């Protein structure tokens, strides 16, 4: 299927291609939203979001008995850790011990460049 391009104007070629890329990724975005919408395993949204109440300084308050993390079925520990880290990062919890934010962080593939800024305590 060898085509002769419909135009030789670089600008038009750029616009066409860019448009197709955007269309594809926008559709993909809606597909992800659809997956989330139909997800039979997702947690129902909770009425009161407790996390937003604790102040930033409470990060170190380990003596206080922190509630066990709510573990949904089907969510991997990494995700939980990541979420906990996000919460911790903004000062809402004193309970997270160690965090692997994303798996690329720990794969040897990229081991030459390491950031440890997110590892806490």
């Amino acid at each position, binding site marked *: 299927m060898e085509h002769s391009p419909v135009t030789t104007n*670089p600008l038009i070629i750029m616009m066409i291609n860019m448009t197709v*890329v955007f269309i594809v*990724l926008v559709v993909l*975005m809606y597909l992800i939203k659809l997956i989330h919408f139909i997800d039979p395993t997702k947690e129902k949204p909770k009425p009161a979001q407790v996390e937003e109440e604790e102040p930033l300084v409470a990060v170190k308050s380990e003596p206080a008995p922190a509630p066990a993390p709510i573990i949904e079925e089907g969510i991997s520990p990494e*995700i939980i850790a990541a979420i906990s880290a996000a919460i911790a990062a903004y000062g809402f919890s004193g309970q997270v011990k160690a965090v692997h934010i994303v798996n690329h962080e720990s794969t040897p*593939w*990229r081991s030459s460049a390491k950031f440890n*800024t997110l590892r806490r305590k």
Partner: protein
Amino acid sequence: MEALNAFTVSLQAVWNDSGFSSFTVGNGIMILVGLLLLYMAFVKEFEPLLLGPIAFGCILANFPNTGFFGEEMNVMKAINFGITNEIFPPLIFLGIGAMTDFSPLLARPSTLLLGAAAQVGVFVALGGAMIVGFDVHEAAAIGIIGGADGPTSIYLSTKLAPHLLGAIAVAAYSYMSLVPLIQPPIMKMMTTQAEREIVMKELRPVTKFERVVFPIVSTIFISLLLPPIAALLGCLMLGNLFRESGVTDRLSDTAQNALINIVTIFLGLGTGMTMSAEGFLRADTLLIIALGLVAFMGGTAGGLIFGKIMCKMTGGAINPLIGSAGVSAVPMAARVSQLVGMKAKPGNYLLMHAMGPNVAGVIGTAVAAGTMLAMLK
């Protein structure tokens, strides 16, 4: 006397068949290029896993009389077969898929738009390349450097402009390593201090259902729309399925270790071995390197601009700095977003948020490659 005569003749014969007797200035320069690349790979640590074998392959390819490219099969020719028939890049993607966590993208799917916007660099470079005189196939292959995605660049180049493969691969992997130098100035220039200080809301949890269904659905949708990248995207998503299914850890482990390492050695060596003096030592190569930089900067800018737009539209919920991560170069570009964010406001952890556009950029570049292949092939 016979002995001495035979002796002289034999030494002469060895010399005549040696690489020294056929050595060209071009070979010499290319070996120097290879040494420079080795230096970049091993001392400067520019993507050493790929650039190391590429550099070594470049050196090997420029020894005369080795017979690597002759009629008879040999190990280097077998490796070359895997390059010219696009066998290696999908297998690399199988391993990359097994290493990739799409959760940040699934938690905030709008970051796909940043992964799309960052592809503007690809097309800016495409346009630029056409303007400076490359034909549209070459221009597309050059543009893909801006995608900051090695296997996709190699895949597209072998299909559209195999004679430029070496230069494009080298440019792609070099700039990927230079992301921490290229991006920050652009990021600081294009964003305000207030924007950079934006703290983003934590990501929602992502279920296993989402993580398993996403690679399947995206494979079906994208492969149907853009069949030329079905192999590449299919392998990426199959590797991701191995990772996420929870019951194929054996395959996930092998895909991201033994298999990807073996294929990386072959891909690098084979790519390097396309770097002949005639193909590489041309003004075009400098143009390609220049255009590659334009592409990277364009992609960074594109992602940032769209980040600013999203920032506005969400009433300041999106920090535009994560836009630049849309060029992919996983996870380097996301780390750059984080670093620049932390400099603007200590404690502003953007890494996880930037991983969304970052992995979206991988998909975006594959889609851009598919689009160009669909139009040009």
